[in-house]
């Protein structure tokens, strides 16, 4: 009887704890939620349970596209939008984009390695240098579409140079 009660007690404590984690992890910051989260954080970090569940929220937000400009030895420029080659049906569609976002968000960490890779990838063009450009999307509204505008038109993007570097000889 005592053993059974102890089992129920342990089970009850665990389901309460786990439910608390599910509720507190995505809760907005407040004095109370921050205090509880401090206790739960190691558990949530270890098991990857610290999620906000805020998909496309509060607003959808604008994305960015990575553009690669390869300068060849004769001074010619070749522009690539590498994400265009990805297939929607393969998970690499998201993995590679994840990498591009990492390059655009933290160029000081990832841009050099990315440029070295792009130099190798485009070896057939005899690249001398690579420029990475972040094409920040501007809002494209229904009115733009009805006016016959093209979403991919450069005027709906703001270009920002992330890094320019020479390819290794």
């Amino acid at each position, binding site marked *: 009887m005592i053993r059974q009660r102890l089992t*129920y007690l342990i*089970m*009850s404590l*665990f*389901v309460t704890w*786990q*439910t608390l984690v*599910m*509720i507190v992890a*995505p*809760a907005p910051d407040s004095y109370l939620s921050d205090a509880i989260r401090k206790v739960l*954080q*190691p*558990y949530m*970090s*270890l*098991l*990857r*349970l610290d*999620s*906000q*569940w*805020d*998909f*496309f*929220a*509060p*607003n*959808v*937000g*604008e*994305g*960015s*596209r990575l553009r690669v400009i390869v300068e060849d030895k004769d001074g010619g420029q070749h522009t690539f939008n590498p*994400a265009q080659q990805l297939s*929607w*049906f*393969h*998970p*690499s*569609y*998201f*993995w590679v*984009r*994840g*990498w591009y*976002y*990492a390059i655009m968000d933290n160029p000081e*960490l*990832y841009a050099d*390695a990315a440029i070295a890779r792009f130099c190798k990838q485009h070896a057939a063009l005899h690249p001398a240098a690579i420029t990475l450009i972040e094409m920040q*999307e501007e*809002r*494209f*509204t*229904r009115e733009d*579409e*009805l006016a016959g505008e093209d*979403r991919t038109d450069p005027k709906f993007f703001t270009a920002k140079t992330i890094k320019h570097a020479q390819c290794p000889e």
Partner: protein
Amino acid sequence: MSFVRERLAAFWDVWSRIWFQNSPTTPLEITRIGVGSALLIHYALATPYLSDLWSDNGWMPRDLAVSDDPWSLSLLFGVTSEWQLAAFHFIFLACCAAFIVGWRTSWVKWVLLIGQISYDHRNPMLFYGVDKILAALLFIMCLAPVGRALSLDRVRAVRAAKRHNLGATLPQFTSEWAGACTRLMQIQMATLFFYSAISKLGGDDWWYGDAVWYVFTTDEHYNATLLRFFASQYWLVNLATYGTILIELGYVFLIWQRATRPYLLALALFLHSQFALLMGLYYFSFTMMMGHMSFVRPEWLHNLGLAWKKKIGPMEMIYDGRCGFCVRSMVWFLAFDGLQQINIRNFRIDPSPVVSDEKMEKALYLVLPDGRALPGFEAYRHVVLRVPGMWWMVPFFYIPVLSRAVGTPVYNYIASHRSQMSSIFVGAEGGA
């Protein structure tokens, strides 16, 4: 004092009804099979990218991946060479396959959880919504007694019971802890939808009904054809935007009631099917759908099984109880008959009124509800299509021409040599 005791008893009664209902694991098993399949396909497709995704020579060198958070652990931080990464990956894929079929589920599920978290922590740039959901669902499944139904573990348990008595049946596994884990998964899904909905309510895109339009203008989900269509039928954008929030909010409050659960479940599945088809979020959507399976009532599955059993009708397999090899084969075969659709008859002690003993000496027979009797290979061929637990054998029995051309002579050979086979296989085992 008695008042306090009564209150406590009343509280415990409610608490037990919420958490500790004696439940089968079947809804969780559907989630297991679905999540395992999603993981297997997803990570199998990652195989050509292994080095890029998770090695030191890839996109995320180890020193950049190691976080300040001491709890952000990964077995892959200890992997230093390509062959170690490949070994880790293939063990993980093998465990995904084992998890799907429910083989040694009690420890395979932990390997999967540790593997999944290791991949996530090793390269956080790949981590997005679906990985968070997977981590949450996998952890609950690790705690739950999954593998007790719709699994090879169940087949092994039934087989063990039938080895002593071919007619033995094993009752469906139920436990209070299975009920608690199912409830945890349900709360996880409801919490997810709740926060997803209220976080949307704070944004103008959702409040003014434009969010779905903007989703399809972003790079990841850009769809020129759809944008053209939506521009001319913008009311659909508003409907889809508000509909998404309404379904997410409605789910949180109405999924618990018996009367409304089927509708909310159908709406949630519809929502995710749209995410998959229109936004290309197949992995995410399928994983979410599998999480929603925790709301499938076990009695729905039970009734579905009964309806199937009724549709197919009773089948009687007549076998030679004196042949050890035949009995052993029957034990294996019947272990997959989870709905117990097949009745058995040993013609040596209980002769069949339909099939003569002379015929039975030559082959096993299956008697159908309409009185037809199918011999040997044809009997098995008929059964595998009609018993859900045996559907995995269908490809072997239904290859046009080839299955019959090979299967019939092989069966006839085994049937005519069954005495020798019994002495070789069963005798050898007995001797050992």
